[in-house]
């Protein structure tokens, strides 16, 4: 009985990040919680960075790429933009994973800040210069700030949800 319970919990944990990523990409609050004014954050960025850093096998690169395509479709962006942005986030996480011996939340968050600054800049550059879409930069800065601040909270939640020994 207990073994079954543990198996179920492990299975739930195995698919949790993937389900959360796809849910946040397809749901209304995928990228912005705009109903609270400037309070908007990018949940997919947090999920992708955290899990690519902690356990890259949990969400495959291919699945993250597909989630980017879905995000482009739901938000009406040109196909491939979000996938590219998500992959840049994975790149930062993968590099940090390779050079880190003793993980530390503050170092992680610093690299996360650089990653989201870079990713949002790339996103804005592609959308404004290649596709001629007008962008409100003030909103992007607010979005980056809240995404960065909420990384600490979500990292704690994900840590808490992770079964010990995985």
């Amino acid at each position, binding site marked *: 009985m207990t073994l079954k319970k543990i198996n179920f919990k492990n299975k739930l944990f195995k698919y949790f990040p993937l389900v959360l990523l796809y849910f946040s990409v397809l749901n209304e609050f995928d990228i912005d919680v705009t109903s609270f004014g400037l309070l908007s954050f990018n949940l997919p960025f947090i999920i992708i960075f955290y899990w690519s850093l902690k356990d890259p096998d949990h969400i495959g*690169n291919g699945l993250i790429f597909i989630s980017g395509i879905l995000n482009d479709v739901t938000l*009406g962006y040109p*196909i491939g933009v979000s*996938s590219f942005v998500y992959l840049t986030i994975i790149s930062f996480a*993968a590099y940090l994973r390779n050079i880190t011996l003793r993980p530390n939340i503050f170092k992680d968050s610093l690299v996360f800040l650089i990653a989201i600054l870079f990713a949002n800049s790339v996103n804005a550059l592609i959308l404004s210069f290649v*596709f001629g879409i007008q962008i*409100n930069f003030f909103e992007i800065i607010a979005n980056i700030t809240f995404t960065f601040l909420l990384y600490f909270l979500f990292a704690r939640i994900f840590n808490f949800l992770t079964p010990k020994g995985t």
Partner: protein
Amino acid sequence: MASGRDDFIIAIRSAFLKKSNKQQFSLLALIFFSIFLIFLSNLNFIGIKYIKIGINEATYRLSALISYPEKKLSDSINFFSAYFNAYEENRNLKIKIDELNNDKLNYIFLENENKRLKEIVGENNQISEGIVSRVLIDKEGKFLRSIILNKGSKDGVKLGMVVLEKNYLVGQIIEVNYTTSRAILISDLNSNIPVVVEPGSFQSILSGTGKDYGVIKYSKDQLIFDEYNIVYTSGSGGNFRSGLPIGKINNEIENLAVEFFSDLSQLSYVKIQSLEAAEQ
């Protein structure tokens, strides 16, 4: 120094090229593939267009399904909020009804006179009945303000058709799939509509702000408007027929801000109408 550089190169190479057992694709391959997709999107490659229509159909339905609980929750909150304000609202509405009844008599007279004058000058506006459509998703992205509608090319929706709520302009169709379509809202940053501000018939451009209001831009002179000024489509450029009400001036939000008549965050059903204003 050389060792440090080697470590950096090894870390980069490992990050981009190394695949673990469970990973099907290397990061670098996927990055190149996404750049290739962006390139094809920019060229409006026909294959990408059809793939996108296919993905759109599936994704919109899935997204609407997943968003359903949140949408219902939001509707419930709005319902209770409206319920608690009902008394005050009822009192204000009664006063407004009296005013409107007075105005109505004048409007009937003016409408008949307008019809008669149009017959004299030979103008015949044929406006299609319109296709009533349900809003599947009302996403507010960082860059695009748009809505997904449950009517597509199957139902006769075409690019450029106007989207109305009641009789107020709310957007324009920018993407048509087989059973769904996407409309850009007038609040979008990329939305620019030729308008006329009445009374006075001042021609201008209404631009979206990315928020729940628009602003009057590119007016010829330094204009001063107040809340009695109403903004209508001017019909210039031929994208919209003239005379569609959009909103009223509200300088309290911002100078020359236009408060929309429709609440763009609460759209449930809209009417898609074609522009068939044939000038004889």
